């Protein structure tokens, strides 16, 4: 378990985590980049200016 940098909730991570992988926080949904794996360190992933509707 690691803490989400955006909302502070716990983020559950799977075992064979790789650095650079992108996961999202299941509480707040932000995308987090795996910076280090042991122990896991997460940081806000660079925001893709993804179109989401307009």
């Amino acid at each position, binding site marked *: 378990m690691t803490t989400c940098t*955006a909302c*502070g*909730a716990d983020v559950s991570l799977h075992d064979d985590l790789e650095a650079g992988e992108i996961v999202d*926080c299941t509480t707040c*949904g*932000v995308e987090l980049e795996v910076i280090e794996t042991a122990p896991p360190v997460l940081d806000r992933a660079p925001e893709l200016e993804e179109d*989401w509707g307009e």
Partner: protein
Amino acid sequence: MAGGASTAATTDADDTTAVTETAAAETVTASVIGASGFAGGELLRLLAGHPNFDLQQATSRQRAGKSIGSTHPPLRGTELRYTEPTELESVDVLFAATPHGVSMGHIDAFFDAADTVVDLSADFRLDTAAQYDEWYDGHDAPAYLDRAEYALPELNRENLPGADLIASGGCNATATILGLYPLFEHGILGGETGATDGDGAGEPGGDEQIVVDVKVGSSEGGAGGGAASSHAERSGVVRPYAPTGHRHEAEIEQFLGTSVAFTCHAVDMVRGASATSHVFPDAPVSKGDLWTAYRECYEDEPFVRLAAGGSGVYRYPEPKAVAGTNVAEVGFELDPSNGRVVVFSAIDNVMKGSAGQAVHAANIALGFAETAGLDFAGLHPVGSP
């Protein structure tokens, strides 16, 4: 934490345990007054799928003698027929889903028939007769106002166990209050004075200008019909239908201890109410502060789900994500250019805004599992539900 399928899964497990443990109190009888309407029909549907209720009667004056499935497709095949509201049999719980003014006029008869009355109208939501004079046309049975418990379980569930007259919170009020409450609770709004104390009687807040801009679906208007709510006139609208002076302001003010500047628009959906609240805290807040406030208030709530940014298509609360469910989505965003906090909250007015909230409150009042009968998690994709 909250929401959907995971809740459902957990619930199933818990209930099984509970069932094994408890006993006779397990199933109670219930009837629905105003069962041919939208909120009443939803109650029928929820009670039919509820492990602890045994539905007895469903009333409709206009459709007495007809089967309840003739009105409500999900209930087709059910044997129950509508009866006249004047022919109530004894039950444990009576749900009243009638227009404003009916319950207050029949409350004695309701208690003659039942031990517990859960009212979905506004008839017992306000604390005093004076408020009814101000916002409505007075009150017919003011003696019952003290006895009634307002029900918005996330905020005052401690008042509900054993309550025998429950005034289920209004749809637009519920959406608004759930959105704003954490800001007051955490002192982001309201100074030291504004916090609510759980019985719905908050202290007056500061002089914040809280703008609440609401968008609602057509089912809020009930099953009646009429030229203005015909499909041809009501489709595709963004129509200001209560520019000012909406009666739910009374409830909101009573609960949050502050007035709000409230405007309501009709939009093109059937189920759903969405409240966007624009507030300007006196002191600067960070997005982290907001997350803390909202998570602390709601992380253990089975029916509140936070959505405040994130990724994908569904980033903030929206009604279609909760259609058919008892879930309220709540979220927020910070406007760095002016210190504004924008709060979004979205519910299904027929569920969390009326029938679902009423069943939730009854579950607590009667000692059932809170989520019993309320575990539907919603649909994706879904259009304009």
